[in-house]
């Protein structure tokens, strides 16, 4: 009787653990914790840092394909929309003060957001809509 009870308890714990892994893994792998556009590289900021909730944004914008934002880089140093660079920081290809003709980080950020928002006629496009005081 005792053994069956322990076996049942262990089975229950195992099922709960399995369910936890199944349901929480995507959340752990996703960008749920991303709530701001990274701005450490700039040092002292002139304007308030830009709020950006990664998952909420992509759900609202119906973006499933990572490469739309996380574009890669061709051998010629141009934008590569086939190869996704997710997991790498923007700054790794876009230094704040480029020395080899890369697009600087601030310009990359501004173009990335504003170009898409004006093309789609949706989302913030002016200074004060993103850099909220």
């Amino acid at each position: 009787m005792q053994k069956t009870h322990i076996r049942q308890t262990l089975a229950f714990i195992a099922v709960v653990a399995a369910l936890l892994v199944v349901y929480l893994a995507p959340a752990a792998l996703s960008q749920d914790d991303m709530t701001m556009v990274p701005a450490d590289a700039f040092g002292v900021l002139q304007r308030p840092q830009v709020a950006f909730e990664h998952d909420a944004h992509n759900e609202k914008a119906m973006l499933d394909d990572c490469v739309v934002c996380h574009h890669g880089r061709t051998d010629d140093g141009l934008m590569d929309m086939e190869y996704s660079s997710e997991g790498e920081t923007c700054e790794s290809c876009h230094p704040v003060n480029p020395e080899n003709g890369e697009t600087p980080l601030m310009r990359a950020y501004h173009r990335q957001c504003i170009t898409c928002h004006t093309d789609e006629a949706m989302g913030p496009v002016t200074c004060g809509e993103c850099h909220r005081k």
Partner: protein
Amino acid sequence: MIEIYTFVSGPLAWIAWSVFVFGSIYRLVSMYNLAKAKDGSSLAYMSLPYSLRSIFHWLVPFGTLGWKSDPLMTIATFAFHICFFLVAIFLGAHVVFWDTAFGISWWSLSDTTGDIISFVVIGACVVFAVRRLALPHVRNVTRAKDWFALLLVAMPFVTGVLAYHQIGPSLLMTILHILSGELLIALIPFTRLSHALFAVFTRSYMGSEFGGVRRVRDW
């Protein structure tokens, strides 16, 4: 609303700058022809050294009797013109705009400095307005077109300060700011603001006449 923003920040900017450039050429050419037709002999007296001498003296605050006669106006007018160009060319947000649109970038003012000198421009506009109302010899020669020019130049700064401080809806304020700036640029050749094109020539004319004909100083 974003479509309006896209239009005013894109095609309308090209239109405004085109009107400014071609309007300025038209105004300068037609004014030269008018001067030649009505006062042809004066052109023969135009002198580069006398012109430069006059321009130089009038570029120095309190460097002329005219500037000394009205100190508040002198301070306001120098502060206005210097801060106007600093804000237009070196304001952080303006530099970022050119950077984003064309990938060109240059030195910029800190946001706090830009904010302060924008208020200096607005303050100078208030001085100009009060002066037109308070001083009889200015009031008597003030016409609607003078008020229009002042309004034209004040609007981009008022809307710019409101947009920067996020007073009112940001998108709407920014659209109004860009629109008022474009209106200013496009109408410079056709309003009292055309002194931006003509001042150097009127000063040269005075300098040449006083230097070469009357043989006296004009400062």
